[in-house]
């Protein structure tokens, strides 16, 4: 399972990095979205991968090894919300830029 997740994060990250280096605004936004997916998976993996384990620890002398780490899940939730909001904001700026400059180049002109 680790290797699958690692490859997944790697593919998302490399595609994302390639896309944010492209000259079109839409590609940049897609790249940032892909990167944020990769980062979210990465945060999740930092709580160690575990299957079929509840994230809530009961009272008394329990073995923490039987439980999943709840904190990264909370962190991922926050990170998802924030990156979603940022993407929405960036889309609005993209539209404004497209409307005002008449091109979707990130620098506002095609350099022709």
């Amino acid at each position, binding site marked *: 399972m680790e290797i699958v997740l690692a490859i997944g994060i790697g593919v998302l990250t490399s595609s994302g990095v390639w896309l944010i280096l492209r000259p079109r605004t839409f590609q940049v936004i897609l790249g940032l979205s892909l990167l944020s997916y990769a980062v979210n998976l*990465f945060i999740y*993996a930092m709580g160690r991968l575990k299957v079929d384990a509840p994230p809530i620890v009961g009272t008394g002398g329990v073995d923490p090894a039987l439980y999943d780490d709840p904190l*990264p899940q909370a*962190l991922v939730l926050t990170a998802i919300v924030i990156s979603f909001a940022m993407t929405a*904001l960036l889309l609005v700026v*993209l539209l404004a830029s497209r409307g005002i400059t008449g091109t979707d180049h990130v620098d506002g002109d095609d350099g022709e």
Partner: protein
Amino acid sequence: MTPWIDHLIVAPILLPLIAGAAILLLKDRRHLVRRGIAIGTAATLLVVAGLLVARVADAGFSGQPGTTAYQLGSWPAPFGIVLVLDWLSALMLMLTSILGLTSLIYATARWDRAGPRFHSLFLFQLMGLNGAFLTGDLFNLFVFFEVLLAASFALLLHGSGKARIKAALHYISINVATSLLFLIGAATIYGVTGTLNMADLAVRIPAIGGSDLAILQSGMAILGMAFLVKAGMWPLGFWLPRTYAAASPPVAALFAMLSKVGVYAVLRVYLLLLNGEVGWSANFGEEWLLFGGMATIAFGTVGVLAVRTLSRIAGYSLVISAGTLLAAVGAGQGAVLAGALFYLVSSTLAVGAFYLLIELVDRREASSDAAGAPVFDDEFSGLPDQVETEVRVAIPATMAILGSGFAFCALLIAGLPPLSGFIAKFVMIDGLLSLGETVAPTSWLLIGLIIGSGLATLVATTRAGIDLIWAPSDKPQPALRVAEAAPVALLLVICMGLMVLAAPTMRYMERTSQSLGDRQGYGRAVLGNPARPQPDTGR
């Protein structure tokens, strides 16, 4: 210690949040009400910051620990969210509220009508800044970074126009990518240490060893990258001068504080977590800060000489000041750090005042600040240049006032005697010279760069000042409003105050620099002795 003053710690976050949200509910026509609420909130924030500084100083100078932790919802520290008030955060709160209030007053003259929802965004920006300075754990630092960034994106776009939208597109993309770096760094650190609370991290990090060490170090390095992009270190800070030049003046003045958030994060995380006496964490990454900072000063020096417009000059002086601060953190502790903190306060206020002055001085030259066409339906179009309802006070000898204000700013930023910029640089250089038995070559280089950058700033500002103020112009004299002149004057008066009251201010800075490396004190305040509010059930 009365309980109410403990609850005051959370006020710098709650107040602007509530007031900003309330302003959103008001209709656009209730402009004066919105403006009144915003200014009232900013003024209250200033009072709160003053009380908090007084509290830290009172406790600290009378021998008690100056650091206080405030546990939100009374959850105990490593698990719950904790706000920490200490010397540095109180100082930064004070600085934020001064700049916030003055730029807000400045904005009432003209700029707050150049776009919708300015007051709310401005208050949210203040909330993000205050939160970033107060928070005691890494993830909440990220959250508050995002709050202040989201507000800053919208504020940068305030006034609209082609230049701003272009700059904002770059600024947002860079900052979103940086936030992802921040998350990777924080997650890596969590993966190794199992905590994100800074006090807890300070306890655990020295004990990390073996194969985890390399992972933790890379996490720290990635986190550092995120901070340094925000601080504008070369070669990560190319975005800074252009972005800030595109922002409207009151926003740019507040942004002068924004780039200091990165420096604050470096100060906090580096000195608390990576500055132990023993183990791998002893001065990890010191040379990166030192050489990176020096390269930043050099880059800023070249930049400030190369550019011609005042707003770019202000942008590059921000780069220089960030570089000076980072290099001073890397170069050594003690007196150098105290001088650097003094420099932080003085240069932030001076650059803020400079950004506000630029538009006043530039007004007869440029029409470039005119707002562009509206993008959305509910947006105001254009900048209300001639507002009949506004009482315009034509101050006599406008150019004389502007000219002397400009000269003051230039002297402050360049660091010439007798103003506070000089005192700060003098303390830093004095500290560098007395670091060890012999002065290291890097210290000499840094001293040379600090002095050289001051000279370059002086040359650049003088050249621009002669062009703008002394050159004959057939255009009419710009009318100056009290609401525009007063904030600039206030900022300059505060800088003068720093100069006159240099001794007590320096004492505060020295205690701040000592407290920054004091892991035990910080850890005790956050983890050991739970501050109010105490849970009233049980026991």
